[in-house]
Every structure is written in C-alpha cells, then in structure tokens.
C-alpha cells in the first residue's frame, strides 16, 4: 500500500479530505483482500466500509506512522472477522460460483477453477495468512501483528495454507519450498 507519511499524518489528524483520498485510493484492494477471506463480495464491501469507519474512530491510536500499513490491515482484518461472525447464511460466493470465463482460454480457466477450489478448502485463518503475506505484502511479523496471533502461530498457519494450496494445485515445488522452511519473512 503506497501511502505517504504526509497522508498518514493527515489521516491521524482526522482530515476528512485525506480520508476521502485514502478510501478512493485503497478501496478496491481492501475489498478484494476481504473478498478472498470472506468469499462474499457484499460481505467484503461491508467489512471494508467498517474498516474505514473504525480507522477514523481509532486514528489516535496510531503511534508509529511508519507502520501504517500493518495497522490498517489489522483494522481491516478485524472488520472482516466481525463480518464473518455475522456472515449471511446464504449468498453468492466464490465457493459456489463458477468463475470460468471461457473467453480466456481453458488453461487459465482451469487454473482459476483450481484456485477457487483450493481457496474453498482453506480455513478462514489460512486464507487470512495468504492474503496478508501475498496480497498485502506484509512481512510475517507485520502480518502476525495484524491478525493478533503469535508469530509462531501465524507461520504455522501460513505454512499449512501453502501446503494445502500446493497439494490442491498439484505444484510439487511449493511443497518442496515449504519442506525447506521457506515461509516468507
């Protein structure tokens, strides 16, 4: 997330114009991060909205402006967690919708279906580790902090998620990578 220190200071000062810029700049990424975890677009948008409101409410708690990314993702993950607790019993999700677009060619469509299937097999916590590490580009420490888990717990869940993904997607090199202790840092 490319947020300047000036912007972070303006956010911390509660400047509404800065919030508007920040929301418009980061909205898609925030929703998509939540979507990967929650599987429902409506839930994801709701979680993202909650996160921005919570960000404003808790802005005075941001002590270290250099760690804004991790802090914001923590707020975002907490919002997703809250939404997950009151998740709708029915709804459209990537778990049960065919994401294949035949115009893309079958190879890509196959891969997308595989990822969809793999994601559906992961727990929410495992998907969260993948999102924070690979989608939000946080380090293990930052991601562990964002989830509120111990670093060891985070690494363990990430390793599990990668193993599951590797198994489901049939990519042996990932398994090799995991066996070598290759969690990102």
């Amino acid at each position: 997330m490319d947020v300047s220190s000036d912007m972070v200071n303006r956010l911390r000062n509660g400047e509404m114009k800065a919030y508007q810029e920040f929301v418009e700049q980061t909205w898609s990424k925030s929703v998509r991060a939540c979507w990967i975890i929650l599987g429902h677009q409506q839930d994801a948008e709701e979680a993202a909205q909650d996160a921005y409101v919570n960000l404003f409410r808790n802005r005075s708690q941001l002590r270290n402006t250099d760690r804004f990314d991790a802090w914001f993702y923590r707020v975002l993950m907490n919002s997703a967690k809250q939404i997950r607790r009151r998740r709708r019993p029915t709804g459209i999700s990537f778990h049960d919708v065919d994401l294949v677009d035949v115009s893309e060619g079958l190879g890509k469509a196959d891969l997308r279906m595989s990822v969809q299937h793999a994601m559906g097999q992961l727990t929410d916590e495992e998907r969260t580790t993948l999102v924070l590490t690979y989608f939000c580009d946080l380090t293990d420490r930052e991601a562990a902090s964002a989830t509120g888990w111990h670093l060891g717990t985070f690494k363990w869940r990430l390793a599990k998620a990668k193993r599951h993904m590797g198994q489901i997607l049939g990519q042996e090199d990932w398994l090799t990578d995991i066996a070598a202790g290759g969690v990102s840092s």
Partner: protein
Amino acid sequence: MTTEMKNLLLEFAEQCQPASAPWDAIEARIIADGKADKFRWSDRHKRLTGLAGAAVLVGGMYGAASLSPVVAIALDKAPGVNQVYDWFGDPGLNRAVAFDNKMQHTASDRGIQFTITDAYYDQDRLSLQYRIDLPDRMIGSSPAAPEIDCYMNGEKLDLQGGGACGSASETAWQGMWEMYPNGALPNDFTLQVAIHKIGGVAGNWLLQVPVSRDKTQANTKVVELNLSKAQGDVTFSINRVSVTPASVIVDYEYNWKPGQPGGIDLLIYDRENGEYLRPVSGGPVRQRHTDGNTQTVEAAALFDAPKQLPSSLYVIPEKNSVPDLTQNQAFLAPLNQTMPFTLDEGILGQIVVNHVDYTPDKTVVTLSYHGPLPYPMFFGLQKPNGVPIDPLTGPVSNGNGQFTISYPAIQPTDKAEFTSAHYDSTDFMTDFAMQVPLN
C-alpha cells in the same frame, strides 16, 4: 514461489470487481459515529434541556396550552438582563445579538408597563425581547408568557409563534416572543403588536415596532433545493435550507407510515468549520398529509448557525427516538416493592424510586433521576388493567436530581405499575445522507 503465489492471488482477486468507493456512505457513517459519541450525550442533552427549559411555545400555532412543572422550574430560574436568548434555549440568537435592533417601545395599561427592548428579524424568524414592569405586585401565582398578536398595516400576520417569560425581579418580568412567518414579509415594515392579557390582567397594550432585515440580510443565505433520495419504501427530500446569523432552518420531507411513532430528525455537519450544528428546540411547524397508507411529513428543523457560512452542509437524517412504550423494550415495574429500586431507561438514564407515600388523599412518589433529560419525561404509572394514572402534580424538582410526583390516592393492594422502557441509540440513516450546496 512467492512471486507465483502473489500473482495467483492477484489474478484470483480480480474476479472481485468492487463498485466505486462509497465515500458518501463512509463519510456519513464517520460523522454519525462521531456524533454517537459526542452529540448524543452532550448536544442532545442541551437540546432536550433547551426544550423544557425554554418553556417555550405558549399559545400560537404550536398548540401547547399549559406549562409543565419542569417549565415552571425553569422559569423560576429567572433570566437576567441580556441573558434572555440563552435562557430561552436558543444560543444562536444569543450569538447573533449584534444583529438585534435595540429599542425602547413601551405601552402601559392597568399600571403594567410592557416594553419591547430588542427585535431580531431575518429571512425566517422574528424575535422580540420584552420587559414587563409591574406596579408593586406579582401578577398571578405563576408567570406565563403573554400572547402576542402581530399585524402589518392592520392585517393580522400569519405567523407561528410562541414565547417564554420569567421573573427578573419582584416587580419585573423579562421574556421573548419568537415568530416564524408563513409566507414572505417585506424586508422593512412596522410591526403592530397587540397584547390583551398579561398574567391574569386583561387590558390593551398596543405598540408599533419598526423591524428591518438590514443587519441580517448580508449574512443570510437561502437555497431552494430539490434533493431527494429513496430506498425501499422511504423517500427523503430536502427542499430548502436557510442560513441566517442566528440559525439554520432546513425544510425537508419524508414519507412515514400513518400511526407510526417518531419521525425523522436531522443531523447537520459543517465540514468546513468542523462542527455539528446544535439542534434547537422549537422552530417552525410544518404539515402532515395522509394518503391511504402513506403519510407525507413536511418538516422543518432549527439549528444553531455555523461559525462562518460554509459552501455546503452535510445532512444526515436520523430516526428520532421518540419513546414508544408499545415497543418491545417497554417494561413494567410494580409500584409496591422494596425501595429503592431502579428503572433502567438505557440512553435516557436511570430512575431510582426512593419512596412511595400512601395517604388518604394522594400517593406521592419520590424519585431521583440520572440521565440526559432535564427530568424523567418518559415513564408513567398505570393500573393493572393498563389504564394510565395521571399525576396530580409533578414531577416537581427538589434539587439534586430529586423529584416528587403526586398521584390520586392509590392503595398498595391496587397493584399499580410503573411503565417505562429501555431506550437504545437513535438510528442514523446514513444511506440518505446528502451534501447540500449553499453556493
């Protein structure tokens, strides 16, 4: 692998195509959220206090007929000279005092002197401050604002008006009369004032008062609008916003189910000056039209003026929390139980019932109230068959949040019950929030 996984997730996530960022909704929630923390407990407290404390709205088209005990309490705290506007519960007028026209127009009859000392006149309202000097005696046992009729060129003006009055000394009262014209009035005219009763004394006090918008006009902005939002079966529209040195008046409209309690209030945020505009009780009253199962409410809301005229105002409708004892938070508590006991009214505070004294001619309930209202407004007493028992007097303040209420004689065996309710927070309708341009 890291790159592969990253690309995989990025590509996968592209399946989700969010709509554009709903900044309006987020901003509305942020504002409402902040308001929930600050406004609800502070400004709302003032607003409700203002409502009772101002005692306002005697006669006129408001339809209020008598002063409540609390109003009487408020009136006992007499306004000092130059504090009338504040005391009246309308600090906007107090801040706009520089726009007043000072004057001394006096009429005398029956030994009573009625003097108009200040007139404030803007696009929406006309306020008069007055002083009543008595010869050597009080008029009646409790003060009451005299009813004032207003004319222009001998024609009675179509105004909604009301006022309040309190004793300034043993022989003087001070008060104000607030009027909202129904229709256009000229910028300058001679207001003809007629009063036929002051206290319990009938007479004729006739005055001619020149009023002018000269001072206020340059600091007034009125915009006619046609902003509307609909969702589900609710449509909400803002038709007009008027910003004057003393106040902001928003004319709005919404549909409401006939018979449904409550209504829609407004929350106004001035983003440029970073402040919520404080709602003020009173203000003009609009209309309700019922057509089958739909009631259209034309409403107007009165607020303090912003510090400076902003280029826009942010309006968030809010379902008001007019208590409805038929809702499921309502509860009953037996009158005859071990004292003290507490009635928890949620955001409206707590009532602690300390004593019930049963005498042959009346039953007196002594209680303390801790909450945002000037007195415990929203509870009652009823018979086991659900018939309400109206108080004889009260709640009368004994100071320090202590009140007594006298009811007709009830016996412990009558099994009377308190009716109350636990009130939750009010509902901000963030989906209906609107930015109102004032340019």
